């Protein structure tokens, strides 16, 4: 695949300027991937100077639009990056930096070059123009001194440390003081042995692997969001037929689905969107008669008629009809004809109904274990619901945050004939 990231053995450092992920190689060639949302564009090669190709080059980081290369002897070199061109190398005046054997990670916050050491002491250098200021020691907490600490990056004024088991810790940096450590909630990051580089692009933490697959998670406050796969290798093509605008925006439902299915390496592509909300469109189908409980393969005449609206729908595509209501009243229904895959989603759907119903279309079932010790009169009493799962049978409207797909569900989705190579 052309948009794998940093998978060549000769790739040496990965950093970021703006929304461009930059990969430097052992021979000094430098490559970039523009990152947009959850997508990394195909690589391009920077024109201009080679960078960071000397065996003695030890750390690479960025400050503004400048690529900074620090050598084993502490010399600091820079390359101004303009568009897709690497400027000629220049040597920073002033102090040497990060030349001690115990120096472990080098990052930047604002105009500060920050060096962490093996014992947790943290040193800084103010960078002014092309001059490295004298070193100073940060007050406050030690940082990144545990042997299991694996990667260090920064987001805003926060120093972020990931560990071998995927726990993520932070230190807020204020002036020349390192704040006490805190643990991020949410997803664990970069715990697989094959994870190779970690870089922040905006508020997204991106982990690249030896295979070139890359994963990301959005960092919001002190929480790591759901992990998604950058450039999913599979995708589902959706055709949206909008008979009624639902109360929760279609884009919200779609983004939720994209985020969650992205964790399975499956992209969700809107292949077409058809507006059927006009007055003269067949109003009868807006309030749709469906077979109760939406059994697979059983359809009313109206469902058949609805799914006959299949303009532009390819053999492996999935259609979603946004109708006003169904009878019986449902948030959605995944019954569809044998020759066209799809679901209906109603006006009262939750933010996760779209993903849930497409999950059904892709052969996922409701999870078990949500109806324990129910009275005989109401055997499905939802006494023990699990609202951390997309396929809860107790109502996706109760899901707070982003639900998960377990590995078995991911395997089912990825093996479904509707998921196609990207």
């Amino acid at each position: 695949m052309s948009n794998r990231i940093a998978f060549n053995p000769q790739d040496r450092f990965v950093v970021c300027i703006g929304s461009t992920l930059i990969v430097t190689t052992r021979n000094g060639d430098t490559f970039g991937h523009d990152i947009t949302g959850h997508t990394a564009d195909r690589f391009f090669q920077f024109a201009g100077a080679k960078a960071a190709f000397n065996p003695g080059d030890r750390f690479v980081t960025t400050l503004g639009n400048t690529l900074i290369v620090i050598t084993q002897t502490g010399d600091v070199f820079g390359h101004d990056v303009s568009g897709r061109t690497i400027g000629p190398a220049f040597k920073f005046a002033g102090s040497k930096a990060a030349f001690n054997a115990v120096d472990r990670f080098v990052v930047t916050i604002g105009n500060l070059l920050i060096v962490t050491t093996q014992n947790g002491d943290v040193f800084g250098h103010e960078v002014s123009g092309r001059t490295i200021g004298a070193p100073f020691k940060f007050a406050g907490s030690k940082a990144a001194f545990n042997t299991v600490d694996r990667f260090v990056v920064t987001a805003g004024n926060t120093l972020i440390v990931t560990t071998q088991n995927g726990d993520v810790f932070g230190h807020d940096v204020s002036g020349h003081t390192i704040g006490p450590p805190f643990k991020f909630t949410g997803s664990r990051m970069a715990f697989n042995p094959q994870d190779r580089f970690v870089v922040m692009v905006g508020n997204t933490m991106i982990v690249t692997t030896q295979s070139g697959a890359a994963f990301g998670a959005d960092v919001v406050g002190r929480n790591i969001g759901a992990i998604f796969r950058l450039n999913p290798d599979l995708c589902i093509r959706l055709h949206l037929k909008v008979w009624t605008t639902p109360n929760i925006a279609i884009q919200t439902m779609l983004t939720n689905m994209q985020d969650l299915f992205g964790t399975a390496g499956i992209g969700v592509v809107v292949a077409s969107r058809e507006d059927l909300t006009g007055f003269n469109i067949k109003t009868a189908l807006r309030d749709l008669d469906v077979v109760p409980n939406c059994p697979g393969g059983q359809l009313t005449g109206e469902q058949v008629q609805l799914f006959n609206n299949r303009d532009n729908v390819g053999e492996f595509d999935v259609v979603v009809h946004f109708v006003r209501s169904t009878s019986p009243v449902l948030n959605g229904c995944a019954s569809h004809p044998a020759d066209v895959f799809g679901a209906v989603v109603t006006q009262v759907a939750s933010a996760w109904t779209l993903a849930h119903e497409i999950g059904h279309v892709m052969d996922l079932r409701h999870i078990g274990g949500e109806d324990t010790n129910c009275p005989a009169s109401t055997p499905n009493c939802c006494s023990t619901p699990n609202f951390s799962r997309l396929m809860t049978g107790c109502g996706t409207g109760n899901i707070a945050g982003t639900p998960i797909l377990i590995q078995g569900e991911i395997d089912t989705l990825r093996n479904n004939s509707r998921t196609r190579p990207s």
Partner: protein
Amino acid sequence: MAVTLQDVVRQLNRDEPDYVRAAQLGPEALPHLRQLIEGDDLGLAAKATYLAGIMNADESTRLLEIAARHPDPVVRVAAAASARNLTRITASLAVTFLDDADPGVRKWGLRTVEVNQPQGIKPNLERIMKDDPDIGLRERARKVLEGMP
């Protein structure tokens, strides 16, 4: 054991409620259904309306009458559709559906009176047959009229 509002909400808050099973909550659920029909959650109001009809209890007609006056057509459609499940439907409730400004409510009202034929609604059916802006509903009304005794 008394049925609580939470018991009812758990049944209805699903993406795909099973109304036959939910109806096993029994008539004790009906006051809670009324509360939900009159509440702020549109989805629960529509689902509670549908369940009230499925229960086919003495109080069900009263709940569907309340739902038939709901400001949101999603709830009125649910009432018109679920009225099919009642053993009998009053002419006044049927007329409320047939005269509704929303074509979806009229559609399901026609289906309900086709199943459950109250007396005194033929003028309303004839009006739909002749004047309804929705051609499909005109045709449906004609068929319903043909099937009326």
